């Protein structure tokens, strides 16, 4: 039997039964959507509600019954100095790292939009922090910043920057920098790793925006004799503004809610000086067993996330109508 004959037979069978009720778009649409929506409601929607319930109750890993205690968990959290450090760190890490990323990503996107030898290799290397599992990359940093064997310290020793009488100041008297043992240096390390980790995504998003600037706009600017900086400020930045916003918003979400960098690099130490909301929620809620406390701490992430989501919605809506 030929292929067309088969099709005809199938067609006949269909007409005999009448069209499936499933074929009506008003039925099929929701039916196809249902599995995904049920999944999301069951494992994102309900847990979100649970998180709120937990934060208002005294639930622990040992005693899972939900007895409401009002805002006690939030009050307890705010009374704790470590929590206040964590809250402050979360904001500082996010704001500072994303400001740096915004500048660096613009430079890097400009570099990658040019043609040069070895560009593919550079692109591969530059993207590594994003394309590899974060935990493993941060593990690489943990070894690179090791208290005794850090190669950075070796270079600094060779350059005479470490030891008694170091030009960097009296704090650098030892044979090692102890990057993760001093609060200030540990915070700096966390910041640098955050920049390192969020730079690639911001760069590729900006790069996508750069390549989408219409050629005739660039040509017109060249014909009019606009120099590099004129083109940068009059064309590139204004045209890239929405896409820059998208890049920064991702960066904010990923830095603000991150647990991995601090957890692996410092475990919140030294003396809880690098705790962030996510790690503190983990230590209180999971390791400490006080689910209610942990849920309350994690919920402090929520307002910022809602703000980011609203901005993203606006950008996506605008992109749709353009």
């Amino acid at each position: 039997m030929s292929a067309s004959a088969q099709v005809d037979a199938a067609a006949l069978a269909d007409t005999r039964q009448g069209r499936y009720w499933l074929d009506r778009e008003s039925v099929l649409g929701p039916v196809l959507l249902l599995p995904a929506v049920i999944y999301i409601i069951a494992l994102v929607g309900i847990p979100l509600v649970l998180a709120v319930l937990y934060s208002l109750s005294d639930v622990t890993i040992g005693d899972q019954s939900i007895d409401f205690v009002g805002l006690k968990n939030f009050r307890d959290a705010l009374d704790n100095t470590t929590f206040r450090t964590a809250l402050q760190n979360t904001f500082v890490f996010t704001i500072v790292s994303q400001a740096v990323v915004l500048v660096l990503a613009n430079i890097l996107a400009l570099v990658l939009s040019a043609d040069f030898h070895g560009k593919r290799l550079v692109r591969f290397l530059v993207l590594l922090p994003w394309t590899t599992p974060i935990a493993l990359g941060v593990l690489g940093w943990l070894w690179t910043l090791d208290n005794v064997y850090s190669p950075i310290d070796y270079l600094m020793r060779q350059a005479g920057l470490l030891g008694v009488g170091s030009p960097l100041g009296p704090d650098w008297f030892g044979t090692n920098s102890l990057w993760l043992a001093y609060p200030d240096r540990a915070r700096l390390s966390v910041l640098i790793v955050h920049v390192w980790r969020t730079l690639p995504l911001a760069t590729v998003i900006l790069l996508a925006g750069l390549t989408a600037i219409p050629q005739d706009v660039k040509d017109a600017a060249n014909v009019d004799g606009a120099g590099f900086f004129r083109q940068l400020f009059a064309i590139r930045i204004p045209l890239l503004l929405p896409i820059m916003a998208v890049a920064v918003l991702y960066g904010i979400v990923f830095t603000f809610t991150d647990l991995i960098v601090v957890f692996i690099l410092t475990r919140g130490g030294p003396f809880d000086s690098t705790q962030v909301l996510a790690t503190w929620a983990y230590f209180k809620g999971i390791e400490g067993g006080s689910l209610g406390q942990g849920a309350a701490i994690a919920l402090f992430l929520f307002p910022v996330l809602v703000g980011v989501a609203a901005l993203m919605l606006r950008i996506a809506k605008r992109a749709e109508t353009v």
Partner: protein
Amino acid sequence: MTETARRLQEDGKRASQAVGEVPASLAVPMPVSPTAAPVWDDAANERARRQAQVRRVATRGLLYVTATFFALFAALPFGWMIFTVFKQNSDLYDPNRNPFLYNEPPTLNNITYLFERTEYATFARNTFIVAVLVVLITLIGAVPAAYSLSRLAGKWGEGLGIAIFLVYLVPPTLLFIPLSRVVADLGLRNTWWAMVLVYPTFTIPFCTWLLMGFFKSIPRDIEEQAMVDGYSRLGAIWRTVLPVSLPGLLTVVVFSFALTMHEFVYALAFVTSSQQKTISVGVTTELIRGDVFFWQSLMAAAAIVAIPIALLYNLFLDRFIAGFTLGAVKG
């Protein structure tokens, strides 16, 4: 300057180059007419040309320096990781030695140690099983949803699609505490099944969004034609839309797989028994504890997974980015 004059001038230059050591100023041919450009003007041109060349070389130089700087910064921990893997203990743990050299011959012992004396192989197997199952669940959830939103939902499809995408941004750190209860209630605590259950909460939203963009780029004619030929809507999707979307489906497979390998928070919160751990958590919690850090094996454990995933990711990069830009880039 007339066209003839310019040609003559060029001929003169070429001739002077052929002769060799003639200085540029002498190579200028005699003016063709008394009104032609005087000699000093030509020297100015020459200077401008040199300046432009210097600027071009400087720009290129700056480009290469910047590119190298960023590449080194990004690759630093990975480069150091790979360099460490092959070091012998006596070489590595001697702070007086130059860490940038192999002071003793490189060795593969650290890699054999990883596979024979640690549970790395178990972590790898768990990760692989979880990833395959998560990919399957993601396909089952995301493909129909994306089709429905891009083809059948009409006006509100796009809005709902964005809403689903935003679920991707709900971070594990907000959900892991209540989800640990859900997982425990389902009897999945401390098994990798917990991850199979929970990971699709972030893969389905992102992949639905990716596939929506893909389905929209396929002309409606192809399934309408198939329906005219007598197939039901589902039959038409199965026989025409899905085969055409194969690259999109492959993207979804790779992305879900990669996200599974990347995930850390849920795995950390749900699983404590080392037998059930996946690579990112197993390596960082099981191999790192104890009195001695086996840094070379640890770094091998990280690099063996990280580099192949990076290569895989790069193949599909442009499609992932198309998803991330939220349609704010018209390509």
